[in-house]
């Protein structure tokens, strides 16, 4: 143990920012995965009910909570976290197994451009979906 300080001194350069975001999104995703599995369990309980009417009712009960617009927008943030972790993960692989350390900053810029593009397209589709339902449209 080198230091008695609980505070870690960060150097605000590209590599540190990339690493810090990777850690924050990773911790967030682990938290989400836990919730997701528990909620999914409820879905499967409902989906396994033999009576179709009861099945739809139980399903809608859970879905009624999940389709709250707040969750809809949080899911867009979730997509952002997953895509960041995935794209920066590819960058880490290129750095570790390729020759990426030489151009890791450019690589991060490329990944962020891809992230932005995917967010506009797929985050956009999700936003359309949420707004459509808020407007009373069918799911």
């Amino acid at each position, binding site marked *: 143990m080198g230091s008695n300080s609980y505070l870690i001194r960060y150097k605000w350069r590209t590599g540190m920012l990339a690493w810090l975001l990777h850690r924050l999104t990773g911790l967030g995703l682990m938290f989400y995965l836990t919730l997701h599995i528990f909620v999914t*369990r409820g879905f*499967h309980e409902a989906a396994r009910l033999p009576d179709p009417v009861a099945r739809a009712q139980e399903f809608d009960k859970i*879905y009624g909570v999940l389709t709250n617009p707040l969750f809809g927008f949080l899911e867009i943030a979730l997509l952002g976290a997953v895509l960041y972790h995935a794209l920066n993960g590819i960058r880490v692989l290129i750095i570790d197994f390729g020759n990426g350390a030489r151009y890791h900053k450019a690589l991060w810029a490329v990944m962020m451009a891809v992230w932005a593009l995917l967010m506009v397209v797929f985050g956009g589709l999700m936003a359309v*979906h949420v707004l459509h339902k808020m407007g009373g449209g069918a799911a």
Partner: protein
Amino acid sequence: MNDTQAKRSYTFWWFFQRFSGVLLLVTLLGHIFLVHFNLADFKAVALTPDEVAARYADPLMQLFYALFLILAIPHGVNGVLNAIDDYLRNDLARTAATWAAWALGLAVFVFGMFTLV
């Protein structure tokens, strides 16, 4: 590092993190884009009970999700352990947090597997 610290093979976990990461790129992104989007009609979709029931009656999907749990949970727990190693300097707190992270991972794994069968 000192002798009282829980020992992990850092080399093994370093490789595991990359190995599972590559497979998660395919499985996790595949899961999101196949389940939550309709790529043919190019839109985000809501789930239906019949669709969920059909997916979990399919042995191939069960295998896919089992693989998913086996890859994602240790990947996540290992990430949490890295954070614990970095920030928790107190031996007791670190040991407790390490056990808690594994316990959480195990609980999620067991619960996830029960969901599949």
